[in-house]
């Protein structure tokens, strides 16, 4: 543990950074003071509160230098793969080859927040007819057109089928603008019918074997495209090694989530936990480094938990958070209002579950892809959430609606009904836009009311 844990501002981090340097801070190549990212236009950083550990410093620097990393990868001769929508499957395959680097252009959905709308990406999306009635992932269109936020990938791969309409429509718009896309189909996950051969997916849901076989055949097409691009075979041996490395990431994240969500005092803020979880989907473009970043975080959190130290009051309301927020500041706001995160389902639970290593790799990846919470029913998703509520001892559920997202219109009701039927705990649904400044007071009131309800319920 580097110091007493607390949340600090960007300016405070700069002071702390200087102190740490003077005491011999050792950093990776992408290290440096966090405030330097302001030069890239990341103005939102000025309004965030950060964990003060060196592990968190490394995490933030790792996140905020991803674009440089992709350019460096290209300069070293690697081919860049833009993988879209599947959130966790194709990158495992891509990183099985040393010739490829993969990232999610979908991640551009945070640019309007991080750059406080100054990048103009949403304006570009507007000009293409993709207005604010779509999910903020529409920022991706602007990012492609400006070529200012990530290198244009040599290959774009997008999952379709049982996905949200926003993303599918936006990806099609991109395709219509002349960006070739390799589409692959992921069917809606259903339960096996009587007499139908079934398999158990990571995460526990059963699925008909025929659906796994179908996804496997789709992934075979993806595999062939990746091989072509890499100029090398992506055989079972390589894929197995890639799966093994992905499982390292998932194992560390599993430890981290378990430690952070079950500790008596919250040992790591919600914001850093959110970013750590995001590493699972494409390793922030460097799988090996992602493992090191997570290992350091786990070490820090473990030390804090053993010492009984944390960043929030011990009586903080234990909230289970559903869906990622478009405005990162809202994670800080929850804590300011007296809450802490005890369980999450940020749309990619399947990227956190270990991938089976005792199966042929494509079979294992197909099972994992089908375990995607967004591929199945809202009831399935709610079931997984209720299991984790129990595991992490959450006292309330917060469903943050993504503005315009097709799944958010109806799933909240189903999830709320199922959670309340099982646990009789409060469920709050609230919409979080990419920059919430103008509605901060409303959100604050909602969050305070939720926290108050939770705390009152403790005495009933």
């Amino acid at each position, binding site marked *: 543990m580097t110091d007493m844990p607390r949340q600090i501002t960007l300016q405070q981090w700069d002071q702390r950074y200087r102190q740490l340097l003077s005491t011999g801070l050792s950093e990776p190549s992408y290290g440096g003071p966090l405030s330097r990212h302001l030069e890239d236009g990341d103005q939102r950083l000025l309004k965030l509160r950060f964990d003060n550990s060196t592990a968190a410093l490394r995490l933030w620097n790792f996140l905020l230098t991803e674009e440089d990393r992709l350019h460096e990868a290209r300069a070293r001769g690697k081919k860049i793969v833009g993988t879209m929508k599947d959130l966790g499957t194709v990158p495992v395959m891509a990183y099985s080859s040393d010739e490829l680097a993969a990232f999610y252009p979908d991640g551009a959905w945070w640019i309007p927040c991080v750059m406080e709308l100054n990048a103009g990406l949403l304006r570009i999306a507007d000009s*293409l007819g993709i207005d604010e009635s779509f999910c903020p992932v529409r920022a991706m269109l602007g990012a492609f057109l400006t070529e200012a936020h990530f290198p244009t990938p040599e290959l774009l791969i997008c999952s379709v089928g049982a996905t949200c309409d926003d993303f599918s*429509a936006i990806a099609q*718009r991109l395709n219509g603008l002349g960006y070739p896309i390799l589409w692959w*189909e992921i069917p809606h996950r*259903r339960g096996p019918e009587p007499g139908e051969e079934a398999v158990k997916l990571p995460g526990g849901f059963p699925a008909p074997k*025929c659906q796994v076989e179908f996804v496997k*055949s789709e992934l075979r097409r993806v595999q062939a495209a990746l091989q072509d691009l890499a100029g090398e075979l992506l055989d079972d041996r390589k894929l197995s090694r890639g799966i093994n490395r992905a499982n390292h990431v998932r194992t560390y994240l599993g430890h981290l989530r378990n430690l952070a969500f079950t500790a008596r005092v919250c040992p790591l803020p919600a914001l850093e936990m959110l970013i750590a979880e995001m590493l699972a989907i494409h390793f922030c473009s460097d799988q090996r480094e992602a493992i090191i970043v997570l290992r350091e975080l786990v070490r820090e959190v473990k030390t804090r938990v053993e010492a009984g130290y944390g960043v929030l009051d011990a009586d903080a309301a234990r909230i289970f958070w559903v869906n990622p927020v478009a405005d990162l500041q809202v994670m800080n706001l929850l804590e300011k209002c007296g809450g802490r995160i005890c369980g999450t389902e940020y749309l990619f639970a399947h990227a956190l579950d270990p991938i089976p290593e005792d199966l042929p790799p494509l079979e294992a990846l197909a099972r994992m892809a089908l375990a995607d919470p967004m591929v199945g029913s809202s009831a399935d998703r709610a079931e997984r959430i209720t299991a984790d509520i129990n595991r992490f001892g959450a006292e309330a559920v917060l469903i943050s609606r993504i503005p*315009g997202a097709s799944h958010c*219109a109806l799933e909240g009701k189903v999830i709320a009904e199922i959670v309340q039927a099982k646990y009789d705990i409060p469920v709050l649904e609230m919409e979080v836009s990419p920059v919430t400044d103008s509605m901060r007071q409303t959100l604050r009131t909602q969050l305070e009311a939720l926290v108050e309800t939770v705390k009152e319920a403790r005495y009933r």
Partner: protein
Amino acid sequence: MKSIIYSCPYVPAEWIAAHGLQPSRIVPDAANSAAVLVRREGVCPYVRAFVGEAVMCKQAGAVVVTTVCDQMRRAFDVLVRQSKLPAFLMNVPSMWQTVASQRLYMDELKRLGRFLVRLGGRSPSPNDLAKVMLEYDTARASVRAARGSWSSRRYSEAITEFGRTGKCVITETRVESDLHTAGTPLAILGGPLLGQDFELFDMVDASGGLVVLDATETGERGICAPFDRRTVREQPLIELTSAYFGGIQDPSRRPNSGLYHWLRHKLSDRAVRGIILRRYVWCDMWHAEAQRLKEWVGLPVLDIDSTGHYQTEKERWANRIPAFLEMLQ
């Protein structure tokens, strides 16, 4: 006999009928919108109306929903929780160019068949299926043949009536108002129509236009391709798959270039001079195509979004449609 209700054009009526059950492709009424889904924000008005209609429909013995749009896929979750009506969610692949997708569609038809058998239907022999397919194909050809000799509203209603009952009503006696009129040729394009939407056709007529192409999902665009009668007799299920999965173009397909090829042909064939794009708010699939369509088509496009509030909507139509036609004339 109770009906198997659905609205998606990728559900083949012939398949349900061949199982001895009554297929009914419904056109929901906006008035039922709030019956189940009270919430409006973010919810497609058509989905709200469909769910309301499915729950309220007394003649329904079961409902079939497809995965063609995400909101409908999620509406299925609500339906099964709010209603005791047996419900089936059919996976319709977004991709259409691969053999695997075509096979998946056919497998889903077989799974739908098992659902229908559980409801009391009987599994059809290839001959039974072929017979039903040929009957439907004949009736569908009669509907198609009537285009141009009936008013555009009557023709579009005949298509929906065929979807609802499987019968061609076009041979019945016409009244004067059913007759074809002249006017600036327009296409109406978009997702499925609600019952109230057919007034749009009258409004176009009254403003000096004529809908020569109903490219909505409830219109011509939602009709499957004519069957190859020889293949029907030899491999009916394959032909059914080919005519429906291969023959209906939709913006949800990936890629959706087929829709544009289909449109290019139809717009040229019918000498269309303007397009009314009629879409629902919160329908991402059509909304995302609006701008692309304008860039692509080289014709004036009137983009009308619908919230499902028909009182205010009619007033908007009454202003915008005449203005659009005036501009075209």
